[in-house]
Each structure stands twice: as C-alpha cells, then as structure tokens.
C-alpha cells in the first residue's frame, strides 16, 4: 500500500518572518522618535568615518547612538566612543547583521531615546542587502577608491537602499572614478536613490548628508512614510 502524500503550498519569502519582527522593532523606534539608519558598504568604504564626521558636524545639536557590527575586534567601536554611546556587535564570523543583534545591542546601550541610531553593518555588499534590521533608512556608502562599477555589480544592495553616499571625493583627482557614471548606474537600479557625494575625512558634503538625515527624522515625527522599501 502506498503512503498518502500531500503538497502544502506555501509561496512565502523565507525571510518574511524576520522582516515582520524587524518592522515591529522599527515601529517601536518610530514611537520613541528614533530614526534608525542601516549603513552598508564594502570594507574600508568609510562607514565609521562617515559616522564620526556626522557626530562632529552635529556636536551637541543632535543625539545619536551607534551599533557597530564587526567580525572581530572593537576598533571601530573604540573610534566612535568619544562621539556617542556605542555597542559592539561582534558577529563571530557572520557576514551580515540580523535584527535580533540590533535589538540586543540597543538594549545593551540601555535603550537610549536618541534622535538617531546608526547601525554600521559588516563590510560586505552582498549578504547585508537581504536582511532588514528594522531601519527607517538604508544608506549605502561607496568610496571612489572602489571603482564606479559597483552599483551594476551589486544591484541588490543599491536597489534596497534609499541613499547612496559617495565617499572619498577628495581623492577623485587621483583615481579613475566617475561620480556621474556611478550615479547613473545606481539610479538605473533604484531611481529614487538620493545621491550624496562626500569626503568624510575632509568634511566635504557632510552638511548635505546631515540635512538629509534630519529631514528624514522630521518626516518620521510627522508620521509620514520614511520606511525602507523592499518591493517598491
């Protein structure tokens, strides 16, 4: 006698449950008025430098806290500590952050009711693109030393971001990088990207980036949408 078989049709994104939970965390951050920013980039593009430059620009004007994801060492956290409360999320080899780490890090900081919570993802343009962390904004940092071909090579990271920060513009005279080419390729993937050229090291363009963040938080407080769009 043959055993009976049945097919249960599901048709569901494997990450849907995690995304739902991440969005509940994001909603709780919305209620307390904290804008959560997920920073994604290759290693060395300047995520930590961008946060430093942001904190330097704001001074006491705005409050922020930082969660730093790193595979090993707390060097980035040590760099940021003079500027803001920082929790280190050492992933022990994992290539990306997931929302439970972010929630745990925020609790480890004592659940600060800051205006901005920066989550510095693990340096990687592949895996972090698939994992929502409860962010309101996903910003991708692309540095001029990496080459302007990165948007076309890593489309998912650019498609799922709302802002593209082109860092190390002070080196443009020395490297074969076209801001226009990177911008055009990125906009072909995500037409609603806000493109912000900066030099975190020299402090160039940081005012526009900071204005972008404060405008984002203002929208959040006004109850207007500011949400990461996954299937736009």
């Amino acid at each position, binding site marked *: 006698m043959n*055993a009976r*078989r049945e097919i249960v049709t599901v048709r569901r994104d*494997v990450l849907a449950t995690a995304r739902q939970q991440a969005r509940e965390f994001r909603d709780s951050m919305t209620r307390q008025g904290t804008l959560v920013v997920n920073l994604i980039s290759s290693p060395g593009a300047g995520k930590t430098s961008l946060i430093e430059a942001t904190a330097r620009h704001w001074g006491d004007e705005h409050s922020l806290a930082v969660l730093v994801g790193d595979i090993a060492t707390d060097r980035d956290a040590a760099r940021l500590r003079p500027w803001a409360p920082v929790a280190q999320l050492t992933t022990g080899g994992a290539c990306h952050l997931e929302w439970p780490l972010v929630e745990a890090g925020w609790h480890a900081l004592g659940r600060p009711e800051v205006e901005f919570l920066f989550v510095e993802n693990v340096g990687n343009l*592949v895996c972090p693109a698939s994992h929502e962390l409860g962010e309101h904004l996903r910003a991708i940092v692309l540095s001029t030393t990496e080459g302007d071909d990165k948007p076309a090579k890593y489309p*998912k990271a650019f498609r799922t971001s709302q802002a593209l920060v082109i860092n190390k513009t002070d080196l443009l005279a020395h490297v074969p990088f076209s801001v226009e080419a990177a911008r055009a390729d990125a906009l*072909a993937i*995500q037409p609603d990207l806000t493109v912000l050229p900066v030099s975190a090291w020299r402090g160039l363009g940081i005012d526009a980036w900071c204005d972008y963040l404060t405008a984002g938080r203002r929208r959040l407080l006004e109850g207007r949408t500011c949400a990461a769009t996954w299937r*736009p």
Partner: protein
Amino acid sequence: MHERSLVLALVRDVERIVARRREEVDDGALRRVVEVRVQAGPLAGVEPMLLASAFAETAPSVLGPDARLVIEQVDFAVHCDACATTTATPEPRFSCPACGERRVSILQGDALVLESVLLEEASTP
C-alpha cells in the same frame, strides 16, 4: 555566505507548517517531510550549491532524514507602473523594455521563496 541563516529560517518555516498541518488534520497520523521546494531568482542573493550544502547540514536533524531540497531557478520579473507590462528576464532588469519607464515593481526573483512542502503520511500497518 549567508545561506546558512537562510536555511535556518527555511527549516523553521517548514517545521511550523508541519505542526499546523498536524493540528488541522488531527488524525494522529505521522507526517514526514519528503520534499521542500524553494524558488530562487537572480536577485535572491542565494548560491544554489551553498544553499544545498547548508540544507544537508541542518535539515536532517530537524525535519528528518527524508527531507529533500528542490531548488527551482526562476526568472526576474517586473511590472511596469506606467504601461502595466509585465516582463520576465533571466538577469535582473530594472526598467520596462516596452516603454523605458524606470519605476518598476519587482514581482519575482529577488527573494528565496518557500514554494511548497511535500508531506507523506506514514502508512498504517
């Protein structure tokens, strides 16, 4: 390499589905998972070989030794918000080939989707 964490999420979903099916039918029969069918498109961020090896490591201890993973490769599909054309291509394409519009909605191919679970009822003697 995040296939391991995708497999953990996948296996948890399958476990939940088996448990719910058991409750719904409530006939006391044992059901084992014989096939887990997933769809992955070109923007899913999934390497099929790595997914298969992560599944082979993780699934037997949770779903039993008979659970087989079937990975279907699907096209990338977008819907044009301007001219309402739906297009499928093997590679990701973020504009409408019919009218050139850049604002398109991704319908398929950007996620790892659990398509179905095949259950087998253990035969009664």
